């Protein structure tokens, strides 16, 4: 019979990989948003 309700997976308490967090931090640091005169946004990824 199909097991419907297994024990709560330990992955529920897991967190994202550290690399993911670091990527987001780096992405944010390198992202510059410029608003043009015509109210458009330009995203620049500067390393």
């Amino acid at each position, binding site marked *: 019979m199909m097991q419907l309700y297994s024990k709560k997976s330990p992955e529920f308490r897991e967190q*994202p990989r550290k690399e993911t967090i670091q990527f*987001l931090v780096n992405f944010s640091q390198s*992202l510059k948003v410029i608003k043009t005169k015509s109210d458009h946004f330009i995203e620049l990824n500067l390393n």
Partner: protein
Amino acid sequence: MIRDTLTPDSKLVSNYINGNEHSLEILIKRHQQRLFSFIYSKVKNKDITEDIFQDTFIKVIRTLKKGNYNEEGKFLPWVVRISHNLVIDHFRKSNRMPKFRNTDEFDIFSVLGDDVLNAEKKMIKEQIHEDVRELINELPEEQKQVLIMRMYNDMSFNEISENTGVSINTALGRMRYALINLRKLIEKNKIILVN
């Protein structure tokens, strides 16, 4: 590193918008577990959860840097809403909804999984849906009710319990028996649910 648990989210957001990049890191680490768990509870796959988590915060970062965020003291609900929409996008793209689990007896995705259905397959799919609906109608009312709420309305057992006025354990039990009885009905009616 000392965890910052004192500065409210709204202040961190404001600091981040004003150029304090470290504030973003605090926000992410403060809410990462809850958000990750939320996404995982929907998609049930760790790699996909990582992707959606990352995409969520990319959207957050872009929106904040564009100055498009209106602070109303609801940073986390806003982020969760973004992730929820990305989860929906994920299921639309993959053309699957997490309503039925595969068992040894039948794999409903063997029928529903095809993006491009020719006319014949479409008819078979519709017939199977109809068969499933008829089988569900034959269940005892209480079991039918729980199954429909869970599978078609995507309600949590907590919500089902509140709606039906029974305990969560009772709702769980009714769901279990609904599936047991559904299988018996499939056997009894000799219905084939695979293509």
